[in-house]
């Protein structure tokens, strides 16, 4: 199974360091939470990982190769960047069929995934009529289309109702238990507290902590992930 590695990854937009010398690895078979406040650099990091954005310096690789060098990238890495990436006048099913055609997934895989993400009844409706939560589910279906060994999900719980968040937790746990690498970003720390095994915490583009969540909580004597995060920011710590 795949190992994600960021090596001195840096992204600058003019004078702003969106991501600053980030070096960390993500292990397979676990759910890794990629956490930080809004604007901390999470999305920029994930976009560099999947080749949507060029790093200023450093590398982001999956099993030692940049995303763009993977032969059929979505067969290796399933990505969800945000939920608003579907044509509003195309049906959910057709949106998946289009993506499936590019990666070699059959039409029946689109139907299977609509069932898995709970959109079987809405599959023939136009995406423009979907709620935010439904679009999130469609985004997850798109990420799972080619049955990848690695999942990179940017804020997947946005817009999901409590039942949806619970469903997402179970889905991600099931995928990690199959040995897949699952990297999930979020700015709502409490949301992922019951989901993740490892955490990577960043602030202002810099790594402030990483490791198994239980170890970090114990080491910093924090009761919650939120407490740990604010404690680390106050210290400017890096562990």
């Amino acid at each position, binding site marked *: 199974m795949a190992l994600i590695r960021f090596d001195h990854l840096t992204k600058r937009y003019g004078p702003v360091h969106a991501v600053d010398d980030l070096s960390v690895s993500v292990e397979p078979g676990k759910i890794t939470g990629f956490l930080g406040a809004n604007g901390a650099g999470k999305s920029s990091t994930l*976009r560099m990982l*999947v*080749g*949507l*954005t*060029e790093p200023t310096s450093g590398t982001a690789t999956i099993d030692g190769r940049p*995303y*763009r060098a993977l032969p059929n*990238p*979505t067969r290796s890495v399933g*990505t969800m*960047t*945000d939920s*608003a*990436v*579907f*044509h*509003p*006048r*195309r*049906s959910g099913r*057709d949106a998946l*069929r*289009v*993506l499936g*055609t*590019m*990666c*070699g997934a059959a039409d029946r895989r689109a139907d299977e995934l609509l069932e898995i993400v709970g959109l079987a009844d809405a599959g023939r409706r136009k995406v423009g009529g979907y709620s935010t939560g439904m679009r999130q589910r469609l985004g997850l279906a*798109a990420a799972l289309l080619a049955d990848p060994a690695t999942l990179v999900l940017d804020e997947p719980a946005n817009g999901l109702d409590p039942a949806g968040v619970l469903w997402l937790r179970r889905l991600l746990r099931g995928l990690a238990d199959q040995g897949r690498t699952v990297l999930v970003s979020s700015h709502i720390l409490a949301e992922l507290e019951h989901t993740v095994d490892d955490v990577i915490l960043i602030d202002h583009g810099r790594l402030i902590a990483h490791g198994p969540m239980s170890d970090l909580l114990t080491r910093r004597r924090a009761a919650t992930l939120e407490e740990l995060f604010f404690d680390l920011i106050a210290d400017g710590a890096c562990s």
Partner: protein
Amino acid sequence: MTAMLRAETLKLRTVLMPRMMLALAVLGGGSLTGVVVATAHHDGTAVTGTDLATAAAQPLWFLAVIVAVLSTAGEFQHRTIHSTLLQIPRRGRLLAAKTLVAAGYGAVLTAAGTIAGLTVGLLTMRLTGVPLPGLDLHLLATIAGTIVLGALWAVLAAGLGMLARSTAVALVALLLWRFVLEGILPSLITRPDLRPWLPSGTADAVLSSRADLPWPWIAALIFTGYAAVLTWAGAHRFHHWDA
């Protein structure tokens, strides 16, 4: 590449606009040519096969342009470019697939509208008792030229869409260029003979046999050059774009 071409074609087939434009091309091509024949009959002027084949050419090209702009600029407008790039991170190949499918769509739309126009035109002539034009090489070349220009206009528009990344900006720019700049630019620089060498001037010259215009094949080459330049500019901007 085959998968990319199939996916780009499926994109066009799974939204309403390209199908609507195709239907409009058939209806519009037929109606316009019918009107041209009826008007000529009323005025007592002769109608040639070339008149029938080119009567609806410009509106047909415009329909192809709209869909081609939507196929590239629309990806940015609806942000579907993100999911497309995740599937196909090699941008050059993606752009090549988009350009080929836009060209194919432009050719199919223009062919459908031209065939509808020829059919309605010939039927109208027969019903009004006007002698039908013969099918000769010149007519066949005109039909082929009209269709190839439909494909080239679509390529040019796809490049412009990729450059502008906004359907509104791309279409307004194209309309301004076609109806304002090409009209006033030759006068502004006091070179009225320049017009046939500008993009739509060369496209018109391809189908014309007037002695004062560039030879059709030279005009076709120049128009291909305009399409290539816009495609290159769109590709260059796309290649350096952070999604």
